[in-house]
């Protein structure tokens, strides 16, 4: 068992899959010569060459569009969008083309395509560079959306994503590439579409994903000191959703808190809460609490930005509120 960073985990996944299958290639802005703006693809160009590590123009629609075309044409592209904020430029190709080509043409076209992109805020980058719009991408049938919260999950899920024949939107978090975690040695493949209980507990179910997983685990540790036992369930995949462990947990605890970094309105929490209400209504002992970003564009000022983003204390307070 090795302890590596999120960056290393993702980098290893890409490297291993590129070694394994010649058809896999990377394209994106600054992925080659620069080595990736988050250093994920450092060293790749020298080893794999410029045919398989392609620097693109600043043209997200062309990046995703050409990735789609090359996937249709027999390659297995891993396209990088430098941040998820730039994904909007390629929105049509992500949700209107990639998500629909297989369906619309009666199953003829296969798109073994992965779009990797980091999101999240907290580095004073300003409103247009700090968003967590994950819920929007999870809205569309036909696109799978994966968002790991630990290095082990990041590695195993990215490898599975690259081997999948479906188009996958792989969301990383820009502020946790140095987060460390245990990653098993050897081949690591984690199935897409399966939630995971990251911590068992009895009093409250915390449903979360991505960066909020580590925040939730910290909150759970604090709550333990006050004799509150929290179960933390990591979604890992936003579409397709694996509700089963969540419903089973909720039937046990009767109280739920959903923690996400994106905005509350129309967010991931809305979906999970609605499903819990639908499937486990009779087990509800209190309304479900949602911890999310405040309904504001993120400001530059450091203090204000941190006020807007959800913190560990917010999760602790939400748990106490739901148990009140």
């Amino acid at each position: 068992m090795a302890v590596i960073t999120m960056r290393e985990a993702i980098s290893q996944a890409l490297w291993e899959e590129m070694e394994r299958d010649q058809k896999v290639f990377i394209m994106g802005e600054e992925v080659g010569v620069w080595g990736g703006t988050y250093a994920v693809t450092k060293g790749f160009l020298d080893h794999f060459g410029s045919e398989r590590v392609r620097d693109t123009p600043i043209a997200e629609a062309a990046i995703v569009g050409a990735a789609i075309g090359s996937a249709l044409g027999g390659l297995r592209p891993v396209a990088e969008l430098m941040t998820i904020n730039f994904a909007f430029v390629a929105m049509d190709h992500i949700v209107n083309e990639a998500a629909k080509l297989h369906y619309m043409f009666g199953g003829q076209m296969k798109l073994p395509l992965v779009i990797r992109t980091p999101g999240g805020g907290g580095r004073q980058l300003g409103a247009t560079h700090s968003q967590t719009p994950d819920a929007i991408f999870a809205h569309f049938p036909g696109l799978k959306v994966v968002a790991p919260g630990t290095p082990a999950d990041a590695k195993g899920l990215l490898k599975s994503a690259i081997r999948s024949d479906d188009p996958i939107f792989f969301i990383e978090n820009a502020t946790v590439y140095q987060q460390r975690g245990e990653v098993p040695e050897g081949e690591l493949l984690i199935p897409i579409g399966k939630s995971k209980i990251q911590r068992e507990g009895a009093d409250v179910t915390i449903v979360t994903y991505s960066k909020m997983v580590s925040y939730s685990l910290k909150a759970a540790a604090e709550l333990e000191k006050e004799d509150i036992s929290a179960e933390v369930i990591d979604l890992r995949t936003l579409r397709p959703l694996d509700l089963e462990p969540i419903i089973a947990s909720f039937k046990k605890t009767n109280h739920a808190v959903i923690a996400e970094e994106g905005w509350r309105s129309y967010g991931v929490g809305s979906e999970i809460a609605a499903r819990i209400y639908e499937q486990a209504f009779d087990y509800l002992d209190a309304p479900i609490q949602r911890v999310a970003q405040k309904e504001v564009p993120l400001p530059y000022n450091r203090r204000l930005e941190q006020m807007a983003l959800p913190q560990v204390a917010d999760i602790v307070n939400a748990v106490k509120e739901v148990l009140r």
Partner: protein
Amino acid sequence: MDKKSYLELFRQMVLIRRLEENAAELYQKGAIGGFLHLYIGQEAVSTGIIAARKAQDRVITAYRDHGVAINVGIPAKVVMAELLGKETGCSKGKGGSMHMADIEKNFWGGHAIVGAHLPIASGLALADKVQKKDGVTICMFGEGATNIGFFHEAINIAKAWNLPVLWVCENNRYGMGTSPERASAVSPIIQKACGYGMPAYDVDGMNVLDVQQTVSERLAEIREGSGPQFLEVCTYRFRGHSMGDPERYRSQEEVKKFIENGPIDRFQKLILKEGIAAQEELDEIMAAVEKEIDEAVTFAKESPEPPDEALFENIYVEEVERG
């Protein structure tokens, strides 16, 4: 070119024409829903292009796609079945008029978002180049699409990476109801291609032989590694943008003028004038087309609806439980 080829070009254009005319009638009877964009008047363009391409050349186009569908060899009855939303359609009834495709015939659709398939075309060409195949990707689109961002991103990356794409702009003079004079910074459109450093040519889209000849030459050069090239094919659509278009943007006199000098009539006159075939042979072809279309309509009407389960099929390659 031998007689057989001439007659085949003629047959395909007539087949497209009659298919489109029948589709219009079925639409008005309520048998076809959604949007219906007819290729009437533009038959020479797709027919010439597909006649010039080799099997390894990929073709992708926008939503006015019935012509290409017929030219690549999708049977008329399969096209008709798709229009009626039947299970026997080329997209199993799930795509409709704007989303015909048959990847076995290297026809990558039928796309409805203006310009969105252009970056995809660049990607198809990238795949061929990387895998060292000698196919050229032929990307067809209207002149209206040259104003949208996707166009610029796509042709830029194709030129920057020297991808084997033939960009074919079908300039039928109206992007929906807006002429390029009103919508485009420059006219003619080939000027845009020059801005990206690509060889660019214009073609008389009413002349099927001109189209075939030019495309053939361009494909040969691209296959040799010339990089992407651009064609502006001047053509005209005799009907509205789609069914239900009130056509307030052009005069009926203008339309009439183009109809009188249409691609099928012109080609027919040429065949007869050059003594390539006799009128009886052309009549025979037209009668055979009539029969084929009748049978296609019957086939489509009698074909089964997709089953209810089809609603949830082919969302993913690896099926998942419904949410």
